[in-house]
């Protein structure tokens, strides 16, 4: 398998007429872990949703390709089957559909008709991954995210990540609302995926997740684009010094988007 490649060039994204992403560029490959950091309101989650194809976001300019294929030309489900995955900040609840049925439908959609996963094999895989993420076995028969705590929802996102085995995964604030034990478990799940065939883009406010998942590259996002990139040491510096020094360095007064600039 060729090493996966995700390339985002000059991306502009609007939501309800307001431009949130303003010329975003990023290229990443399998085997790499990138982190996107930045204060609230700088467009990080919008970027994640736009790449996956959330219906509310409109891409007005730019390109996204996965292994050279035009992602923007694909429906949401096609993007997923092509190998993209988004662990969402706010996963939907779907009543009446069990986690297990949902997962199996997703896997079979990817494998295609006539090549469905054997039920026993599926159950074995799901049990194994649930075990790794310290998820109770009753979980698979509960309805999709219904009544789940914040932490359970995040674990479910990671469980789906492990089951789906995508080429490129975007983790949108997977650490928010997690206690330190849950954070360790979630990180273990992501680290377990590490391989040349898998790349991850981790979106986070805080450096603490990066204590458990070491990024190869760290990008700082402000005003809807990347304003600074570096290695893991950049995250360390942000943790100890905050974002003000970057703003000063770049002469940015208001890092947020969708608000009048001073």
């Amino acid at each position: 398998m060729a090493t996966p490649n995700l390339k985002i060039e000059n991306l502009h994204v609007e939501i309800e007429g307001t431009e949130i992403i303003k010329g975003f560029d990023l290229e990443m490959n399998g085997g790499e872990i990138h982190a996107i950091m930045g204060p609230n309101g700088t467009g990080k989650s919008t970027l994640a949703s736009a790449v996956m194809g959330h219906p509310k976001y409109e891409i007005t300019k730019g390109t996204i390709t996965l292994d050279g294929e035009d992602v923007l030309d694909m429906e949401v489900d096609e993007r997923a089957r092509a190998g993209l995955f988004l662990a969402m900040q706010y996963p939907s609840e779907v009543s009446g559909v069990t986690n297990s049925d949902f997962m199996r439908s997703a896997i079979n959609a990817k494998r295609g008709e006539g090549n469905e996963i054997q039920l026993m094999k599926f159950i074995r895989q799901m049990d194994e991954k649930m075990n790794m993420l310290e998820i109770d076995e009753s979980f698979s028969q509960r309805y999709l995210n219904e009544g789940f705590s914040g932490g359970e929802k995040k674990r479910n996102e990671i469980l789906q990540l492990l089951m789906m085995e995508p080429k490129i995964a975007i983790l949108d604030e997977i650490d928010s609302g997690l206690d330190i034990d849950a954070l360790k478990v979630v990180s273990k799940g992501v680290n377990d995926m590490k391989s040349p065939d898998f790349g991850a883009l981790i979106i986070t406010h805080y450096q603490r997740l990066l204590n458990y998942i070491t990024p190869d590259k760290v990008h700082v996002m402000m005003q809807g684009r990347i304003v600074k990139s570096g290695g893991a040491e950049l995250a360390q510096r942000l943790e100890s010094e905050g974002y003000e020094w970057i703003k000063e360095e770049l002469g940015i007064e208001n890092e947020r988007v969708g608000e009048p600039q001073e």
Partner: protein
Amino acid sequence: MSIDTTWKYDEKYVEDFSAKQNEPKWLKDQRLSASRLAEKLEMPKPEKTNIKTWNFTEFEHEGTPKETFSSSEELHEQVQGLIDKNAAQQNLLVQRDGQTVFYETNSTLEEQGVIFTDIATAAIEHGDLLERYFMGNAVQVDEHRFTALNVALMNGGTFIYVPKNVKVEAPLQTIYWLEQADMGLFNHVVIVAEANSEVTYLENYVSYDTETPSVVNAIAEVYAEEGANVSFGGVDHLEKATTVYTNRRGYALKDASIDWALGQMNEGNTVSDNTTALVGDGSTSDKKSVAIGRGEQSQNFWAHIIQFGKNTDGQILTHGVMKDKASAIFNGVNKIEHGATKANGEQTERVLMLSERARGDANPILLIDEDDVTAGHAASVGRVDPVQLYYMMSRGIPQTEAERLIIHGFLAPVVDALPIQAVKDRLTEVIERKVY
């Protein structure tokens, strides 16, 4: 009198029919008086649904005589599909056009003193017992023309009696099968659960002819005496030329419970009334129903829990899916009477619209005449949630499949609550067929 002048099921007809069935005098008298009432009474007037043009008069009241079957293998293939072949214990009564054609129970029922028989037999063999409950507190003969006609023309149904302290383990299943295309079925079910008894009942209405006009008028009366628990499952799947009036009523005494799980999948015009009276203190009812409207059918559903007793709990959940040009009105009413202190009543009505030409109204109503109660309702009418769809599609599931999962999930509360696997499977198939 708006029954047309060619009405052939007059008092004389009713008297002859009763005589032919060898019915006791009390029943014949009730039929005759009901027949006279039917001529005077109006049809019910379900809110926002005009039923005046529906066919309630074109049908044959007497089906051709039926041979009985000794094995369930001889039944119509689709009827067989409703039966759990592998069940260790089977309590099954199949009626074709109102006549019993197959009956099987396990011996423990008889040892326990449970009566599970068709209503015609019950009238002869357990007449006194039936008389005590028939058209009792749960339903009145003079409510409107249909309740009266049901009694006057009753030609099918079941009587179930569970003596006190008896727990019936395996569900009692009935299948009311319309084979004769122009049949008019006036079905009547009476379930009596004496104090501290327990029983699960599951009925199925099926027909397979889609073109010939016919009528089903069905009443079920459920009496749960002190501390008794009754679970009532119903799956209606009558074809589109069949006009349906169905009335399922419960009457619960102290600490009793009556729970309903209704899969209302008729293809034709339907008026459905499901009302439970929580009379005794501490009695409860949990009512779940799901419905699908398609084609041009018009339906009116009435889910009603009336709470008289203190500390009673009434739960109503209604989920409807509307497509094509179908219309349906979903009325939910929690009525809490004065004196029903500490009562709790809650309801949820959700309607999923799959077509812009369909119509679905959810009308949640709380009528409360007591201060010291809790109550709540939630209602929504809308399309499949685009964010839910996005979430599911983001895992690679195509849109149509994601919608299918969401709809099955939406209707799962009733499917999950039914006690017989074969019936769950058939209901799932019916949902699949109706939605796609």
